[in-house]
């Protein structure tokens, strides 16, 4: 198949950036979206052009490093799919595809489709952990955990930190990301001692980074490649209120 790509090119944070049109021919429907970009980049390098910079690593949908807005959708229109797991068979021959980086003030563009998501790390630094130095843990069976709680904690913990929730949200909110971690740790007995301080510190850090507030639009969960449920945000709000009493 043959495609026309309109790709956001931006040399660095100071550059204004612009959409650039590329023609890509002989695309195999079995290619992943990133492999299609690889093929284009190989051509650009040989032509002496700057290849399109994009983040990617595991290419099996779990590291959370890749992410681009494709035709207006974070990670593309396919549900529960990271960009690296999106395949070209979902596009039509002669399609025109726009490709842009995550757009949110707390995710400044580094170059082209690469953004700086270190704000996510700082939210975790604020309290997204259980304080237990190596070697100090009691036997794993000393605290049983209800299966339902463990399963729900796991569901929240599957967040890959890609940032699609922020990119999809009209407010640029990081609520789903922050709530996923708060929910994961709040549901476990091990997470109780720091539950209040964690919720307070993480929510405050999220705000300090400049992420917007949640207005229950739900785009975050719809675009989340791991389907993190929206009710984690309710859990976060409950924990935050509890902590603020």
């Amino acid at each position, binding site marked *: 198949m043959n495609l026309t790509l309109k790709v956001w090119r931006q040399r660095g944070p100071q550059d204004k950036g612009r959409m650039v049109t590329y023609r890509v021919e002989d695309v195999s429907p079995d*290619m992943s979206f990133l492999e299609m970009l690889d093929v284009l980049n190989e051509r650009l390098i040989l032509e002496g052009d700057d290849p399109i910079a994009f983040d990617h690593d595991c290419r099996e949908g779990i590291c959370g490093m890749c992410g681009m807005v494709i035709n207006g959708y974070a990670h593309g229109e396919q549900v529960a799919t990271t960009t690296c797991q999106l395949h070209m068979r979902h596009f039509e021959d002669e399609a025109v595809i726009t490709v842009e980086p995550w757009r949110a003030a707390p995710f400044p563009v580094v170059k082209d489709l690469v953004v700086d998501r270190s704000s996510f790390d700082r939210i975790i630094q604020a309290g997204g952990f*259980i304080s237990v130095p190596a070697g100090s843990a009691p036997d794993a069976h000393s605290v049983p955990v209800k299966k339902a709680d463990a399963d729900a904690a*796991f569901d929240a913990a599957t967040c890959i930190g890609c940032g699609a929730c922020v990119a999809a949200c009209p407010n640029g909110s990081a609520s789903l990301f922050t709530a996923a971690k708060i929910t994961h740790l709040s549901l476990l007995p091990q997470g109780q001692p720091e539950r209040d301080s964690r919720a307070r510190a993480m929510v405050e850090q999220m705000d300090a980074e400049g992420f917007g507030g949640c207005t229950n639009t739900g785009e975050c969960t719809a675009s989340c490649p791991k389907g993190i449920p929206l009710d984690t945000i309710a859990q976060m709000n409950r924990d935050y209120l509890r902590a603020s009493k």
Partner: protein
Amino acid sequence: MGRHYTEGEPIRDTKAPAGPIEERWEKRKFGAKLVNPANKRKMHVIVVGTGLAGGSAAATLGELGYNVTSFCYQDSPRRAHSIAAQGGINAAKNYRGDGDSIYRLFYDTVKGGDFRARESNVYRLAQVSVNIIDQAVAQGVPFAREYGGLLDTRSFGGAQVSRTFYARGQTGQQLLLGAYQALERQIAAGTVKMNTRHEMLDLIVSDGRARGVIVRDMVTGEIERHLADAVVLATGGYGNVFFLSTNAKGCNTTAIWRAHRRGAMFANPCYTQIHPTCIPVSGDYQSKLTLMSESLRNDGRVWVPVKAGDTRPAAEIPEQERDYYLERIYPAFGNLVPRDIASRAAKNVCDEGRGVGPGGLGVYLDFADAISRLGRDAVEKKYGNLFEMYERITGEDPYSQPMRIYPAVHYTMGGLWVDYDLQSTIPGLFVVGEANFSDHGANRLGASALMQGLADGYFVLPTTIGDYLANGPYGEVDDEAVAEAEAAVQSKIERLLSVNGTRTADSYHRELGKLMWDYCGMERTEESLRKALERIPELREEFWRNVKVSGTADELNQALERAGRVADFFDLAELMCIDALHRTESCGGHFRAESQDADGEALRDDENFAYVAAWEYGEQGPVLHKEALEYEYVTMSQRSYK
């Protein structure tokens, strides 16, 4: 044609304490000198890599009060490829009361490694395994649980006990996030300084000791020098030398290869694990391979057409024209033979022209029988997420037509040589996780990689590095050594940018990978390895004459990053082939066609090869140092699966 190497002095001391095996680690811990708590923050340790081994090491050293600087090439420490591990983590907890013990895990690991690992190291690994589960649970890792609230386990990789702890199909992710959270906590506490998007390009060795690293800031292109009292490499394996593997795209050998060039010996580079159930290559644009869990072989039947060149769709091939070759050749184990045997058998039928799918490099894994026996619902319950992943990638529905699978490079057992303290042959350079060679011998068992990474990072290294640091301080770092390392990095970058040839680094990497797969892959022969050793230097020479790297050094330049990594893969590939050529026996993941029994099974040669091959870098070719392996506890035996 002669030998490609010379032989040096054997390695006689691995620093493991003597005495009964179960007391050795206790003895070492007690014998290790301690650093005064007030002095710890004056001690500076660099940790490169933030996977299970590096992330847990940096976090733990920070908790202990050391001044830690951590580096990763990704945009966040949470991205390291440990995150992709699916299956689980072994631990000798014996929560099932099914007869497991530290001794049994030790025994299984030594045997599974085909008697090419050190007994002392493996025993310690089994001892520490129980602490890992405690640590992870306390951190909030959401392992699978039973209705009674206790941890669930499963059996894995042919083990006869149920000792594998898991978090659905995402155990690596959950364990890595545990280590990442511990690391972020230390970053917030100020004990660890994190540098993301930084790639280590050389090791600084001053007065014979590792004293720092040269790194490139991948955003600005700036070359930075970082000095320390000790350096820890946790930079993972080198499976991407084959270009196509289940590794992440960024996984590379540069950090350990640069350390090797500076004097760290490289042990058993030819030990490569090939996983039998991966999704096959679909075209020449393919950038990586995706693993499908081995558990699929419990219910799927592997087959190919009887006739070579049969291109009919699977459904149109009648039963009598199908060859269920694993069931035919290995009637006792059938589709459940170990990884290496299943992989080689698939290669053999494809070599006969009976492979299926594009390029004929695939075999069927058929669930039709399982679906008619158990019903579609039961199959979906068991394997639903895997079937979905398969369909996402291939566009084929595995409920209505058989899956196509093919073996792929998955893990490298070789790595930098380390002693019992995880210290390399350069004093002050410690190596943890897949980057070292220590615990898996010639073959790693399923669910043991996560165990080893975390054992090294949480429990072993923090003790042993303290002993090294307590014996310091080691004086000022020689300015000239730093300047020399920095200049070497600069000149390599300039050289890559100045060639301005006609082929991309990736195209050379693909060609090198294909060559390694064909000549130093699942089956190796003297002839194939000699061919590879002829072809690699030619291709490398062409690379340095004809590679095209666009852009400049002082910006985010992914073409430049890749070219630098490919250059080091060439050198490593050559050493792998030399190692594979010299080891004329078959063992574990290293199968030499010349060394097989009458049934075609791998044949070890314990009389001549019961040693670790540690290679020293030499301008005139590598120098082999042998570390003899002695088995005091486990009796050496030959494997059989008929």
